[in-house]
């Protein structure tokens, strides 16, 4: 816990790089990133230490005025995630950040430290005040980081949209804290656990907390800021925002669910679950339609946060059904998936940064064949894409499998048909999500890294410098390590919930889940051994024989194919777009630029846009309503001072009459 304090000091030192003189800005950048990596390393170390050897309490410091810091198992899990991601992404940023030399790089590295520090502070805050202050620092610093490339109009509008949305969320969270705090007469987390909220006020507190944290984690329909803000930020910032900041929202929601509000009301969990499931599917569906690499990843974050919240909601439902022991599997699923998502989304945002670095574009329609130009980046991206498609041997499947098991468990507990229908809905959604995610990342990887170059921006692409590869490579190694040996992580994460019930799922054989007569086992180690055995046999068979390999161009009905004849990313997702037309409502326009003859010599321009469902159906009408109602008020509020004095007088008279009459 002393380490925690030291790490905060290191972050502060890193933040000081903002005021370094301009002529040593490269040094300032290096210093800033090394500080960030070092501080995060210490955070990860102390959290890991606590999770592996749980002590009684982890209270750090109390009483600097009304500020206090504390950490327990629930925050340690998130501190671990933050620390690990912080180290990797800071290493990556040592080289990546150099692209901002001369473009306020000192500000970028200083704020980077402040950003990680504010996240750590949110996780170790011991009372509502500290939490809100740290939460606000986090929001403001991330706003500044998103707005770093303020020269672009899109960036500025994305940043301000983020700013507005995140403050709506903060307002909701503050209401929730106020309700809980006022009923327990204290704002320290320890005391707030003994609140006396019941009935309607408790419902309000839950709804506010869920609203606030769901907004921050980008659940639908509160996600609209996310696919704009994440692509606008520099890539290492998006990696941290997507990988870590979204999870901090889960941390906050979990604190409310476990400690302040409780999970004994049945419908709380149901709401969380259904919102999570809908976000999961719609998120990945929109991701599959995008051509901007970072927007794909941003929507995929919506999906994964949806899965995480669905698992968490499933746990809340199981807990409300008086099944604390089997609710553990769902909570563990949420946490394991949160950790693995922070790794894989961090990795892919870093690799999108690498691709932007190499080609100068985010549009995958202009790429192709990058695997030959940057083989290591391509390898790491492949690992990340496999993990996000939750394939075997990656950490993605561990969380996904536990999520599926928790829903199966819920199905077996579900005696009433309504709940059974809900489980069916959940399985349909999870099935659709899983398969669409696979399609989404096949499309992303296939278009950007495989095939032939679709434009000349790929020609100058090159492999990345060593620290960028190091950051990505370490994440990829961790993803595979967790994927093959999940028991260490799973055991560590279920330890977090030892307050609810003690369950042991991770064994050297794999994860064994045996709750309430249900039995399931996932042993990736054994699958790995089997695959290795089959693989050795296969490779031997392929390479022992002396059949030769010829090279020849692709068959194209007798003509030499051009690179424009490849399937485009937009074309690849066409069948899905057509199948889910009702949800996506794609807007197509076709303009003839030249049409002298009906069949040849035509020049077409084809525009396709897929408006976000909630943006069109929810936010735009809401915005319109607000503008209309303000213009209605405009009639009585026209800026004339004498009129206002008149209003005051009328109000006074009304009050006086009121007083006399009563």
């Amino acid at each position, binding site marked *: 816990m002393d380490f925690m304090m030291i790490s905060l000091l290191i972050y502060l030192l890193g933040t000081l790089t903002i005021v370094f003189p301009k002529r040593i800005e490269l040094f300032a950048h290096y210093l800033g990133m090394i500080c960030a990596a070092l501080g995060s390393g210490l955070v990860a170390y102390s959290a890991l230490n606590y999770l592996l050897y749980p002590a009684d309490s982890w209270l750090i410091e109390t009483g600097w005025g009304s500020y206090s810091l504390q950490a327990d198992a629930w925050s340690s899990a998130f501190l671990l995630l933050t620390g690990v991601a912080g180290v990797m992404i800071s290493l990556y940023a040592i080289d990546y950040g150099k692209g901002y030399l001369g473009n306020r790089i000192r500000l970028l590295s200083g704020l980077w430290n402040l950003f990680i520090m504010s996240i750590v502070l949110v996780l170790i805050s011991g009372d509502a005040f500290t939490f809100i202050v740290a939460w606000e620092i986090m929001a403001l610093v991330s706003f500044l980081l998103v707005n770093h490339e303020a020269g672009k109009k899109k960036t500025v509008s994305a940043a301000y949209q983020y700013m507005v949305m995140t403050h709506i969320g903060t307002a909701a969270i503050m209401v929730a804290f106020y309700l809980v705090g006022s009923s327990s007469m204290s704002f320290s987390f320890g005391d707030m656990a003994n609140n006396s909220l019941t009935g309607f006020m408790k419902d309000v507190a839950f709804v506010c907390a869920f609203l606030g944290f769901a907004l921050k984690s980008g659940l639908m329909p509160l996600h609209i800021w996310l696919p704009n803000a994440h692509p606008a930020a520099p890539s290492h910032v998006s990696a941290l925002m997507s990988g870590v900041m979204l999870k901090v929202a889960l941390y906050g929601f979990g604190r409310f669910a476990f400690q302040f509000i409780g999970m004994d009301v049945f419908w709380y969990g149901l709401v969380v679950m259904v919102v999570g499931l809908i976000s999961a599917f719609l998120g990945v569906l929109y991701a599959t339609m995008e051509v901007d690499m970072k927007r794909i990843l941003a929507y995929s974050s919506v999906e994964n946060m949806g899965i995480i919240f669905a698992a968490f909601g499933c746990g809340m439902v199981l807990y409300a059904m008086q099944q604390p022991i089997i609710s553990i599997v769902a909570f563990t699923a949420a946490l394991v998936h949160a950790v693995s998502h922070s790794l894989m989304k961090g990795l892919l945002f870093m690799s999108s940064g690498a691709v932007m670095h190499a080609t100068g574009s985010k549009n995958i329609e202009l790429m192709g064949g990058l695997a030959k130009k940057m083989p290591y980046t391509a390898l790491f991206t492949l690992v990340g894409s496999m993990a996000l498609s939750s394939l075997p041997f990656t950490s993605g499947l561990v969380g996904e499998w536990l999520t599926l098991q928790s829903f199966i468990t819920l199905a077996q507990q579900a005696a009433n048909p309504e709940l059974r229908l809900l489980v069916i809905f959940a399985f349909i959604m999870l099935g659709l999500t899983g398969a669409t995610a696979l399609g989404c990342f096949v499309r992303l990887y296939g278009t950007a890294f495989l095939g032939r170059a679709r434009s000349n921006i790929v020609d100058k692409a090159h492999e990345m410098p060593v620290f960028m590869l190091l950051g990505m490579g370490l994440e990829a190694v961790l993803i595979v390590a967790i994927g093959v040996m999940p028991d260490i992580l799973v055991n560590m994460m279920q330890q977090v919930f030892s307050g609810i019930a003690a369950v042991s799922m991770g064994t050297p054989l794999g994860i064994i889940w045996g709750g309430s007569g249900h039995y399931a086992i996932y042993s990736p180690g054994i699958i790995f051994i089997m695959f290795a055995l089959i693989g050795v046999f296969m490779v031997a068979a392929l390479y022992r024989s002396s059949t030769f390999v010829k090279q020849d161009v692709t068959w194209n009905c007798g003509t030499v194919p051009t690179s424009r004849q490849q399937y485009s990313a937009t074309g*690849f997702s066409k069948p899905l777009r057509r199948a889910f037309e009702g949800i996506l409502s794609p807007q197509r326009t076709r303009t003839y630029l030249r049409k002298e003859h009906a069949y040849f010599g035509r020049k077409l321009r084809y525009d396709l846009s897929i408006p976000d469902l909630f943006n069109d159906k929810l936010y735009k009408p809401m915005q319109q309503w607000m503008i209309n109602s303000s213009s209605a008020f405009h009639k009585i509020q026209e800026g004339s001072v004498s009129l206002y004095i008149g209003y005051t007088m009328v109000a006074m008279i009304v009050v006086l009459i009121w007083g006399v009459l009563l």
Partner: protein
Amino acid sequence: METLMTSLGLNLVQGILLLIFAPLVAGIINKTKARLQKRRGASIFQEYFDICKWWKKATVLTPYTSVIFILAPVVYFMTSLYAATMVPGFLTGQFTVGDAFIFVYILALGRFFMTLSSMDAATSFGGMGGSREIYISVLVEPAIMLAILINSIRYHSTTLSSMVIDYDGAYFTVSAVLACIAFFLVMLAENSRLPVDNPDTHLELTMIHEGMTLEYSGKLLSLIHLGSYLKIIVFLTMFGALYVPINIPLAVKILLGAIIIGIVETLNNKMRLFKVRVYLGAAIVLLLLAIIAE
């Protein structure tokens, strides 16, 4: 540990047994189709000869491909073989580590690499096949999930060997029959059979699986074909063991299943690509009813 090793060994033996019989089952399907079309048709052992023929031929690679292109058939074959080791075939009751969801995701691993390879040869045929494969898999996946859900509710486990129909209890139920029909529909879609995909042609209007494999030749092609034959026999095994509520030996079920596939393929045309969602929607509704009736 020793029992585990024995069990893994037995699983491997089962995988190899299925591998040996896989081309035969494909041959039986083709023979059935030929007979129903009043042709004599090729011998039921023809698929063995084809595999050997392709294995001997040279592999032609296009210069645009990356290592994924060579890796994909290997991974596809390995995932099919692994799926063959884990289905509850001739080793029911043994301690197997085959989880139903892992079964789905192992097959997804193969699909991931095959669709990637389809985009690697830089041709429009490949991309077309890959794109359609993804579309169909998105529709198939919820149905498979529901099919797993039914048996896991009934037998309280998601381990495939525990989900096998228990003939001591009441097994011929409404729910079981509905699930059986639905799984048959899903099986046809998942294995690129008629009426969803036509395994016999390379015509670009119809092709899905064949479109993806258009650029393959030689050893790699033989691996892909062996992999897809394996996938058919694996699904037939799973269908027989988990979903056909009739108490007859599994081998007979597989044989009958192959013949029924042949009959269905003769009686049906390939349906339009966007009709597939109605077809699979029907499967999902059947499964839904089955779960409610459970």
